[in-house]
């Protein structure tokens, strides 16, 4: 089946069988390697992508289901100020250890920060932890990820 969608700002067209998950289309056909293969059953969050600005797992989404959607991965955020600030904060806070979960962790964090800023929310540490509960990190960097998110939120709310 022919599927047309926007990937990182560019319109792409693929011809896939209905049994192909978005994770495979992105990694194997389109070369998007930031989207990681983890548990393949929605538990680990390593394959997270943004669909219309919200995070979803790409292992439980068929490519044929995203016709017309807007998909964003970290490859598409390399000139996004907020994302780059967050990435730099991940680095400064040592929120990256082995790095396998990091692109997905950063995407979810980015979506959360954006949503919080847009709605003028003041999320608590608990709210932030809740937002990233679907991203497993076997190195256990969670406290450092929370720290990085808090720093960005703090800076961005001060500027406003």
């Amino acid at each position, binding site marked *: 089946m022919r599927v047309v969608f926007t990937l990182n700002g560019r319109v792409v067209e693929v011809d896939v069988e209905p049994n192909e998950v978005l994770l495979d289309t992105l990694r194997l056909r389109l070369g998007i390697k930031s989207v990681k293969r983890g548990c393949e059953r929605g538990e680990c969050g390593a394959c997270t992508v943004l669909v219309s600005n919200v995070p*979803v797992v790409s292992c439980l989404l068929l490519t044929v289901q995203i016709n017309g959607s807007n998909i964003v991965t970290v490859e598409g955020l390399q000139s996004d100020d907020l994302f780059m600030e967050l990435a730099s904060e991940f680095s400064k806070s040592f929120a990256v250890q082995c790095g396998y979960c990091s692109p997905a962790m950063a995407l979810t964090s980015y979506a959360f920060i954006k949503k919080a800023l847009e709605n003028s929310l003041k999320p608590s540490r608990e709210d932030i932890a809740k937002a990233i*509960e679907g991203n497993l990190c076997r190195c256990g960097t969670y406290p450092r990820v929370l720290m990085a998110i808090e720093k960005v939120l703090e800076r961005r709310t001060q500027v406003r």
Partner: protein
Amino acid sequence: MYYSIPKVEYYRPKTLEEAIELLLNIEGSKIVAGGTDLLVDIKTSRAKVRALIDINSIAELRGIVDAGEFIRIGAATKLQEILESHTISENLPLLRAAIESMGSWQIRNLATIGGNLCTASPAADTAPPLLAYDAELTIAGRSGLRVVPVSKFFTGYRKTAIGYGEILKEIVVRKSNWTKWSYVKLGRRGGFTLSIVAVAVTAKISNSVVEDIRIALNSVAPTPIRAYRAEEVLRGKKIEMKLVEEAARFVAGEVSPIDDIRSTSWYRREMSHRLTLDTLSRALGVE
């Protein structure tokens, strides 16, 4: 790739009628909404499906409507949408509390309330609050609509009242003065977890008398259940700790839990008692 999905046909109807015709005409077809249960079941060979009928483009299955006396929730409404809805937090706080503990953000953005009900897992987390609110389910078929109370919807382990060629259309909850409510879910960890036991309580109280009460649990029987006998202990009575304790003991007698990877039967029974005691105490305001 550890998992792969066998060859499957895919349809994306725009209307309920079209979806019903597809269901009736294609043997081995199955509805997919969020896919967070079904695709895992297909990947692990628990489910065999010849054709997937995707209902996400059927507008009348989506959304939350405050219809005055009722709240209507389309079956294909995403859990995250329900979690963020003011209509829901104002009118059905117990449902909101349960959905908050379901899946992760990534899962709630895909998963639907109707999917949670139709998968009919004993651990379905939307079931206890809907049982406690006396929700009604509208089921669509070729010959029209029929309404089934949620208390009659689960007919056995992973079985529902939905018949051949039928689709769950919406969940309807009458606004009612269930002023007291409490919810607790016990899992193996704090976040993103499946239930070992969950207890939902709603009550109507006037002058310290329990006018009406609902106690519902999941993961402790082949289906989500209501604890009718425990409710009877409290209905029409003055609130007293002694009665609350008696009701909680009745719950332990009404459950029929099993051993599985998440817990043991013994522990589930103990926790059904303990957590009902906590939930009732909180809802009714007794220590």
